[in-house]
C-alpha cells in the first residue's frame, strides 16, 4: 500500500495530486527547483525537497535527482503528473528498477505508444481504425512519393517521435511534396534527435475527440467516455468539453470499445487517453495515446463522477477497478477553459510576472484548479498555464452561460491572461451552436480578438477611478506619508462619511 507519494511536478497539477493524496491519508513529497521555493505545491505538501536549478532539464526532468529524492524521503511511489517525466519510459523503468511504484503505465506501454509508427502497428493489429498512411518510417523520398500517390492528397507528414505540432507538414499540392518532407525531417531531427517521419491522409475539418480509459493490472479495462478537444490554437488545446456535440450514442459506444481495444493492445494499466481524429461524417481514426493524466481530466471527473487521481493510485496499488463499464454514464455537461498567462492581443505572448490581486469565480457548478496566489511571481521557466476553470451544468447551454459568468467574475491582475479571449469563445456563434472543428479559432479569429465594445459610460468610470487613485496617491505623497496606509485612510474616511451622511 502506497503511504508516501513524491509528486514529480509543479503548478496546478501538483496541487491537484496533493489534494487527492491528502483525502486518501497519503503523505506527499513536493520537489522544487530554484525558482519554485515559494510555489504553492511546496507550501501545500507534507515535505518539500530541493532538486536543482530552474531550467526543467536540470530539475523536473532530472531522473537521477528525482529518484534520489524519492529514496532519501522514503517515498514509496512517484506521481509524474502530466508533462515533464510523465511519458518517459526510461523513468518508469528506473522507478521499477529501484523498487519505487510509478503511478502510471509500464515502460513497455509508454514506449510502444510513444512512437507513433509502432503505435499505428499495434492499432492496426487490434482492429482500431487508423488514418490511411504509412505504417513504417519512410526510407526514401521515392517511396514517399509513391505512398502519397496511393493515399491521395492532401496528406500530413509527421515526425515519428513528434508531438506539439513540431515536425509536421501539411501537403496539398504535388509541387510541395519533396520540400515538405525535407523540412519535416530536418525539424524532427532538431526537435527530437530523430528524423523519422511518416505519412498520413489529411482529414479536412477534423474534430479532435479523445476517450479516457482506466485499466487495472488484472486485465480490466474501461472507458469513461469522450472529451471534445477541437478548440485548439497551434495544436494546443484551449477549451475542452464533454459530451461532444457531434457524438451519437452508437458511435460513442463503438469508439469506446475501440479505445479499450487500443489500451489492451499494449497491456495498458493506469489512466490513459486515446485520441481520435473524427471527420464530419463521424468517421474516426486513432491519432495517438497519451499514457498519463490529461490536463483536461476534470471534465470527465465531473460528468462521470470519479476522482481519476485516486483511481490511478488504487491501480498502482494493484487493486482491481471498482468501476464497471455498464454502471458508468455521463450526467450533464462539463466545459474546461485553460487560463494562460499570455496576452491574446499581442500574438499570445507569454506574460509572466507578479500576481497583484485575484478574485476567483465560485459558486454552483464551478471548479477552479490553480496554483497562483497574491504576491506570487510566476516564473519564466515553465508552462504559462496558471489555472483551469471547469464548469458543470445540466445542459450545454447552461454550462456555457455558467462559464461566461465565471470568466467575467474571474480577475487576475498583475499579468495578462487569456480570460477575455476565452470569454469571447463562449460568445461565439459557432461555439454556441456546437458547430466547430479544429479550425474554429482560425476561422473566428477576427471575432475572438475583438475587444468588447463598452461605450463612453464605462470608459468614463474607468477614467474617474484612475483619476481618484492617482490624485489620492499624489496627495499622500505630498503629505509625506506612505501610500498604502494613506489609501486606507481614504477608505476609512469614505466609510465614516458614508455612515454619517444619512
Amino acid at each position, binding site marked *: 500500500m502506497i503511504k508516501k507519494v513524491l509528486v514529480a511536478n509543479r503548478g496546478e497539477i501538483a496541487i491537484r495530486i496533493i489534494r487527492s493524496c491528502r483525502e486518501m491519508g497519503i503523505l506527499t513529497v513536493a520537489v522544487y527547483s530554484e525558482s519554485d521555493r515559494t510555489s504553492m505545491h511546496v507550501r501545500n505538501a507534507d515535505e518539500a525537497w530541493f532538486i536543482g536549478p530552474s531550467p526543467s532539464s536540470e530539475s523536473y526532468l532530472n531522473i537521477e535527482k528525482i529518484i534520489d529524492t524519492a529514496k532519501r524521503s522514503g517515498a514509496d511511489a512517484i506521481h509524474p503528473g502530466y508533462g515533464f517525466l510523465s511519458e518517459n519510459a526510461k523513468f518508469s523503468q528506473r522507478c521499477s528498477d529501484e523498487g519505487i511504484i510509478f503511478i502510471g503505465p509500464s515502460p513497455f506501454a509508454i514506449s510502444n505508444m510513444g512512437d507513433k509508427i509502432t503505435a499505428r502497428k499495434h492499432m492496426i493489429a487490434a482492429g482500431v481504425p487508423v488514418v490511411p498512411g504509412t505504417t513504417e518510417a519512410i526510407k526514401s523520398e521515392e517511396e514517399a512519393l509513391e505512398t502519397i500517390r496511393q493515399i491521395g492528397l492532401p496528406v500530413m507528414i509527421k515526425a515519428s517521435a513528434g508531438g506539439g505540432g513540431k515536425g509536421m507538414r501539411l501537403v496539398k499540392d504535388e509541387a510541395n511534396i519533396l520540400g515538405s518532407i525535407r523540412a519535416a525531417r530536418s525539424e524532427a531531427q532538431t526537435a527530437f534527435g530523430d528524423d523519422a517521419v511518416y505519412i498520413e491522409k489529411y482529414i479536412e475539418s477534423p474534430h479532435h475527440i479523445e476517450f479516457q480509459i482506466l485499466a487495472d493490472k488484472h486485465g480490466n479495462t474501461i472507458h469513461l467516455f469522450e472529451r471534445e478537444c477541437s478548440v485548439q490554437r497551434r495544436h494546443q488545446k484551449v477549451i475542452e468539453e464533454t459530451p461532444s456535440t457531434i457524438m451519437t450514442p452508437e458511435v460513442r459506444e463503438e469508439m469506446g470499445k475501440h479505445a479499450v481495444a487500443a489500451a489492451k493492445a499494449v497491456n495498458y494499466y493506469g489512466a490513459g487517453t486515446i485520441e481520435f481524429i473524427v471527420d464530419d461524417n463521424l468517421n474516426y481514426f486513432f491519432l495517438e495515446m497519451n499514457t498519463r493524466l490529461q490536463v483536461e481530466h476534470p471534465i470527465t471527473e465531473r460528468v462521470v463522477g470519479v476522482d481519476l487521481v485516486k483511481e490511478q493510485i488504487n491501480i498502482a496499488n494493484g487493486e482491481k477497478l471498482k468501476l464497471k463499464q455498464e454502471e458508468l454514464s455521463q450526467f450533464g455537461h462539463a466545459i474546461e477553459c485553460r487560463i494562460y*498567462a499570455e496576452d491574446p492581443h499581442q500574438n499570445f505572448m*507569454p506574460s509572466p510576472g507578479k500576481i497583484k*490581486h485575484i478574485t476567483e469565480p465560485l459558486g454552483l457548478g464551478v471548479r477552479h484548479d490553480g496554483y497562483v496566489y497574491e504576491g506570487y511571481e510566476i516564473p519564466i521557466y*515553465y508552462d*504559462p498555464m496558471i489555472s483551469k476553470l471547469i464548469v458543470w451544468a445540466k445542459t450545454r447551454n447552461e454550462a456555457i452561460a455558467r462559464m461566461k459568468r465565471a470568466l467575467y467574475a474571474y480577475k487576475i491582475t498583475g499579468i495578462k491572461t487569456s480570460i477575455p479571449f476565452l470569454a469571447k469563445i463562449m460568445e461565439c456563434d459557432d461555439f454556441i451552436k456546437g458547430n466547430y472543428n479544429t479550425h474554429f479559432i482560425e476561422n473566428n479569429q477576427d471575432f475572438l480578438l475583438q475587444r468588447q465594445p463598452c461605450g463612453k459610460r464605462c470608459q468614463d468610470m474607468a477614467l474617474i477611478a*484612475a*483619476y481618484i487613485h492617482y490624485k489620492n496617491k499624489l496627495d499622500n505623497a505630498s503629505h509625506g506619508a506612505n501610500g498604502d496606509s494613506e489609501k486606507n485612510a*481614504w477608505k476609512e474616511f*469614505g466609510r465614516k*462619511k458614508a455612515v454619517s451622511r444619512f
Partner: protein
Amino acid sequence: MSLEIKIDDRTAKVKLLKQEGNIIKVEVDDRIYDLDLIMVENGVYSILYNNISYNVELIEKKDHRHFNVNTLYNSYDVEIIDAETKYRMGRSKEEIEDIRKIFSPMPGKVVRIPYKVGDHVKAGDTVIIVSAMKMESEYKVKKDRVIKQILVKEGDTIDGNQTLIVVE
C-alpha cells in the same frame, strides 16, 4: 486638479469638483457625474452612478501614471498625462526614434545576442532573442543601425520593459 487621461485612443479631461466622503462630483470632458465612489480593496473601487454598480480594478503598470483598468467586461490601458509625459510627447518623433532602446515587454531570459557593441546591423536584423515560458521571441531593428550599448548578457534574467540594447 484637472488631469488629462488617455484611455485606449481617447484622451479626456477629468476634474474633481466636489467631495464629501465617498460622494463625489466629477467632470469628464463636458459631462458631470455625481457618484458614490469607495475603495473597497487596495486598488479596487466600487462606483455607484444612478444606482448602476461598477466594480473597477486598477493595476499599476510600469509607474504610477500607467494603469491597467478592469471593469466587468472590459480591460483598458489608462495613462495619466502629466507634465513629464507631455514633455516626452513634445519631443519630435525623429528625436525619439534617434535613441532606440530595444526592450522586451515581458520578463524572461536572454537566449542570444548575435552582435557586439559597434556592430552595424541592417533593418530587420534580430539583435536579441528572449525566452519566457517555453516561447522564444526575437527583437529586431526597424532601420539600419549601429549597436551602441548592450546592457545584458546571454543567460541573464530580465524584467519586462527593461532596456536591453541601445542602438543609434
